[in-house]
């Protein structure tokens, strides 16, 4: 179902380069460093709105760093960047990190519900600590977001249990619901299924497909099948450089770069 739809939606690279789509994030000549170490080397790309963009590449190629630059999380752990990132045309240098992160949410590799909070408090944490006090409103938003991630039926009777009591897959969906509550436009996902079993992974992938209608999703993944299944566009990173960026079908069937082809076919990485 997903794949069929994906094929019907295929657009050529030319269409893309002519900017027939709204660009939500535009990266220009981005360099990122950890101290002296260069993690990203001159990355330029544009992320189209309401699409899923997958970032693939071998370990240590800068995928996660790239993702973390987009919501200024890279600077949080002492990293530095050069170059420009535009979000809806605004240089993110000029956007306060707190505001930026409400617009560009993030889901992490390991499900990380807050261990000392109940399920319901986990979901609304982002709102609560941003000043929303109205209990009724919080509960309503929590229900909407839990329904969006398909967790409502599973947890509606146990909303006061610890978030950590859920299974790994449920925890990850809880974390996605938590991200949705602050109503972001973009959701960054850093290997969201790498700690999950195949069934939980399928659920998350279906969810990504659903969320695409309302959100722009950028997903880092080690799993190339996953990239092929869920994404519209794929970027291949290698050694901190962007080797190839084009629509997913092209990358996986007819990559223009030799390195991409070798990585896709499993010859290195």
């Amino acid at each position, binding site marked *: 179902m997903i794949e069929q739809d994906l094929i019907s939606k295929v657009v050529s690279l030319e269409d893309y380069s002519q900017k027939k789509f709204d660009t939500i994030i535009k990266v220009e000549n981005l360099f990122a460093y950890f101290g002296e170490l260069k993690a990203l080397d001159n990355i330029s790309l544009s992320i189209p709105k309401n699409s899923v963009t997958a970032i693939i590449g071998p370990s240590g190629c800068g995928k996660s760093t790239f993702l973390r630059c987009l919501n200024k999380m890279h600077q949080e752990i002492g990293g530095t960047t050069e170059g420009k990132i535009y979000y809806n045309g605004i240089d993110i240098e000029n956007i306060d990190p*707190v*505001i930026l992160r409400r617009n560009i949410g993030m889901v992490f590799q390991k499900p990380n519900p807050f261990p000392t909070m*109940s399920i319901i408090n986990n979901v609304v944490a982002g709102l609560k*600590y941003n000043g929303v006090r109205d209990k009724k409103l919080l509960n309503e938003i929590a229900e909407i977001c839990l329904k969006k991630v398909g967790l409502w039926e599973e947890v509606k009777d146990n909303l006061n249990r610890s978030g*950590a*009591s859920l299974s790994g897959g449920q925890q990850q969906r809880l974390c996605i619901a938590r*991200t949705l509550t602050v109503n972001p436009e973009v959701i960054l996902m850093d290997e969201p299924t790498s700690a999950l079993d195949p069934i939980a992974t399928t659920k998350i992938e279906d969810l990504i497909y659903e969320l695409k209608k309302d959100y722009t999703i950028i997903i880092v993944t080690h799993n190339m099948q996953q990239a092929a299944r869920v994404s519209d566009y794929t970027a291949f990173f290698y050694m901190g450089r962007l080797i190839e960026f084009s629509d997913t079908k092209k990358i996986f069937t007819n990559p223009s770069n030799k390195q991409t082809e070798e990585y896709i076919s499993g010859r290195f990485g």
Partner: protein
Amino acid sequence: MEENIKKYKRKLIFRKLKSFFIMNLSFISALIAIVPLAFIFYYTVSKGISHLNIDFFIAMPKPVGESGGGMANAIVGTLILVGLGGLIGLPIGIMAGIYLAEFGNNKFAFLLRFMTDVLSGVPSIVVGVVAYTLVVIPMKHFSALAGGVALAILMIPTVTRTTEEMIRLVPHSYREAGLGLGIPKWKTSFFIVLRTAWKGIATGILLALSRAAGETAPLLFTALGNRFWSTDIFQPIASLTVYIYDYARAPFEDWNQQAWTAALVLILFISLFSIAFRIITKSKYKTNQ
């Protein structure tokens, strides 16, 4: 082949012996570690129980020569002193710990950490002298406040370092989850990280308060002691530990007995307090996943 199996079996027996030996050695060490505690309990209970009656908690000390009486003023005095110490020391210690853990990647923090460690090694009597200079001399008389300041100085390093260590133990992913939701950094530190680390910090607080309740030396020339009822923090105040010190040295049999009872009461108080504190601060959910 036979040879190999034999060799393997011998090895296995040797391994099991080693395991048995180490396990028992650690068990015996654990036993030895609690022996002093058992002795303390045994002596204080056996010697102190005879004078432990309701009077001890509600009556005032009797004048020299008269037997009986209690230490109501000292019990209240210890509570006030520890309360004052906590009121001053805990917020400073916790905030300093948060600073060191969350923002402490600079030279100043390194220096601060080092000085906190030095402070925790300073003898308590020296801390008493400092409080004497800082509070008693300017005020021109001994006071409960001076005692509280001395106890606070003793609490700060313990609380600071436990808070820092416990916050550092909180996985970075929780901090990032908070920041990723667009929660401001200070709110993430307070409402998410601190909350996750709270159980460990509570243990540190407990330790600091218990230790403060048992301090004598820094109180000798700050809170001084008082044979009369007083809850005024600007006046000298009685405390159980100073009473133990005075009564144990006194040449009266009855006073020596009362010193044992005071020691028993102090230990009971600290134990009860520990249990109550643990129940109160018990988290609804498990902190460790």
